[in-house]
C-alpha cells in the first residue's frame, strides 16, 4: 500500500521548503517527519520522500543509511539511547547498559518483542558531567544507577501501555520542532 503524508505533515513540508533554497536541503527534516509519521522508514516511505522532494530514491537511500537515527526496520517505541563513551564508561556506563539488557532480556541493537523498547548503545550524548546517562525521546536520565534504571523502565512501560490504548502503536509521535512562526524568506 502506498503511503501518504497526513495533511498536517504536508503543511509542514510546504513550510520547510520556504526555508531552504533547494528542495534537497529539506531532506533531513522531511525524513525526520516521515519517521515521526510512520514509525520507521520502509521502502514505501523512502519513495514517498523521494517523490515529495523530487530526488532520486538512491540518494534518499544513501542519506537514510548514513545517519544512525533513521531506521529502516520497525523498532520499539521507547528508544533507550545509553551512552558508554569514556565519561560514562569511567562512571559505570557499561554496568547500566548491561543491567538494562538483563532487565529487558535483549541485547543492545534489539527491540523487546512487545514493541515497548528499543535499546541502543550510544556514543557520547553531551551530558558528560552527569555520567552515566541515557536519553529516551526528549528526556535525559542523568547520574544513573541500576536502581534508578529499574524505576525508569517501569515508568516508561506504564506510560507506553497507556498510550497504546489511546492510539495505534508506531503512529504519530510528537515531533521535536514546531514549523516555526513568523515570516520565512522566499528564495
Amino acid at each position: 500500500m502506498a503511503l501518504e503524508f497526513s495533511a498536517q505533515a504536508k503543511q509542514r513540508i510546504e513550510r520547510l521548503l520556504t526555508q531552504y533554497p533547494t528542495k534537497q536541503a529539506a531532506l533531513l527534516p522531511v525524513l525526520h517527519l516521515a519517521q515521526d509519521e510512520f514509525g520507521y522508514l520502509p521502502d514505501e516511505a523512502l519513495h514517498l520522500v523521494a517523490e515529495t522532494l523530487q530526488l532520486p530514491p538512491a540518494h534518499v537511500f544513501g542519506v537514510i543509511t548514513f545517519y544512525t537515527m533513521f531506521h529502516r526496520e520497525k523498532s520499539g517505541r521507547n528508544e533507550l539511547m545509553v551512552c558508554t563513551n569514556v565519561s560514562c564508561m569511567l562512571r559505570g556506563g557499561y554496568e547500566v547498559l548491561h543491567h538494562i539488557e538483563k532487565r529487558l532480556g535483549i541485547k543492545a541493537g534489539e527491540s523487546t518483542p512487545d514493541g515497548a523498547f528499543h535499546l541502543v548503545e550510544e556514543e557520547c550524548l553531551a551530558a558528560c558531567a552527569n555520567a552515566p546517562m541515557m536519553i529516551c525521546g526528549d528526556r535525559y536520565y542523568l547520574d544513573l544507577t541500576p536502581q534508578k534504571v529499574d524505576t525508569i523502565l517501569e515508568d516508561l512501560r506504564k506510560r507506553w501501555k497507556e498510550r497504546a490504548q489511546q492510539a495505534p502503536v508506531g503512529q504519530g509521535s510528537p515531533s521535536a520542532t514546531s514549523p516555526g512562526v513568523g515570516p520565512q524568506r522566499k528564495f
Partner: protein
Amino acid sequence: MGFEEAKGVKIVTRNFGVPDSHKLGTYRERGGGAAFKKALGMAPAAILDEVKKSNLRGRGGAGFPTGMKWSFVPKEARTVYLVVNADESEPGTCKDRELLAFDPHLLIEGMAIASYAIRCQHAYIYIRGEMMREAKIVQAAIDEAYEGGFLGVDHAVAGGGTFRFDITLHRGAGAYICGEETALLNSLEGKRGWPRLKPPFPAVKGLFQQATVVNNVETLMNVPAIIDKGGDWFNKLGIGKSGGTRIVCVSGHVAKPGVYELPMGISFKDLIYDVCGGIPGGRKFKGLIPGGTSMPPLDASEIEVPIEFDALTSDARIKDVEVKPGVPFDLGGGRRLKTMAGSGGVVVFDDSTDVVALCARIMRFYAHESCGQCTPCREGTGWLARVCSRLAAGDGHPGDVDLLGNVANGIAGNTICALGEAAAWPMMGFLTKFRADFEAKLRKVA
C-alpha cells in the same frame, strides 16, 4: 595578565540557574538585546574590529581567531550564510547542550550581531539530532524572537538602510562527522555528511556554494558581551592571544564534575583539585584528556599547564607525542605535537583505570564514526580499534604496541578532514604517556 580579572566573571553562563532563563522576557529583563541595539549603531567593519581586538577564538575545537574567520568573507559576495555548529558530539564535551538549554536567546543575539557584521540574511543552526529537548527549546526561542519583532523584520542601521535576518533550526540525524564544518554543510544541503576537500574554504564557497561562516555555539554567545563592553575588556580577561573566559566540562573521576566558566589562565591542577574537589575515594590521579577524546592525553607531570589554547600546543612542560620511543611525530615541517585545548571537554581518570580499555573504547568510537571516504581513516581506525581491543582483552600479539603507533602515523595527515588525526593523535599520545600499560597487556608467552 588576565587571570585575576577573570576570576568569577561569567559571560556565557551568566543566566545559568535563573528561572525561565530560556524565555525572551527573562532574557530582556536581564539586559539582553542591548548589545544588538548598540551593534546596529555601528558599521559592520567596526564590529569586525572589536571582535578582532577581543582575541575571541573558536570554541569548537580548533581555536581559530573568530574575527579573522569573519574577515575571510569576500567583499563582493552577494549571498552570505552564517551557520551555527551545534552538533556537539566530541566525547567528553557537554557545554553547548547546556548553553542552548539555558540561554538560547544569547545565541540568537550573538547570531544577529555576527550576521550584521558579515552581511548574512539567513542563518542556520545545525543542532545535533539526538538533542531533541534542546531542539524544542531553541525552536521555541526562535518562535519567540519572531513574535517579539526581533527576527524577520527590518531594523534601521547606522548610516541609513536596514538589516533583517531569519533563522532556521536544522536537526542532524546522528553522525559525529557532521561536527566537521564541511561535512555539516553537506548534511545541511541534504546529503550524506561527507567532508569536502579544502580549498575552497567555506568562507568563499560554503553552504549552497555561497560564502559561509561556520561558528560554534559558545563562540557566538561571547559576541554580545564583546560589543557591549568592548574588545579590549574581553581580551584583558584572557591570557596571551586568547581573550575571554573558557568553558570547561569536567567529567570522569572527580568529586564535582560539571560545566564551569573559568579564567583562561587556570591550570589543570587547580581545575581538578580546587574547582572539582579532587579525585574521590582516596585514589590517585593518573591522567586526563584535555579537550575531548580527539586530543592527546596529559599525565601527572603535565597538569600545571594552563587550559589556554597556545599553552597546550607549545608549553615545554608537555612532552612531544611520539610515533615510537625516541621518534617524535612530525606535524609537518619538523613541528612537534603536544596537545590541544579542543572543545574544553576534560576527562579525568584515576589510577584504578585500565588505560588500554579506555583507549580501546575511544578507538572504537572513531572506527564507528569514520565516514568511509578516505582509505587511511576508514581502514586505519578499524585497525586501531581491533588491535587496541585485543590488547585490552589481554590478547595482544608481539609487536602490537609498535603496530598501533605505525597505523596511527599512517593515518595522520593523509585524510580529507581531521577525523583521521582525531583518532591517530590520541592513539600516539596514549602510547607516549602510558606505554607500559599497553606492554603489560601483551599475551604472555609460556
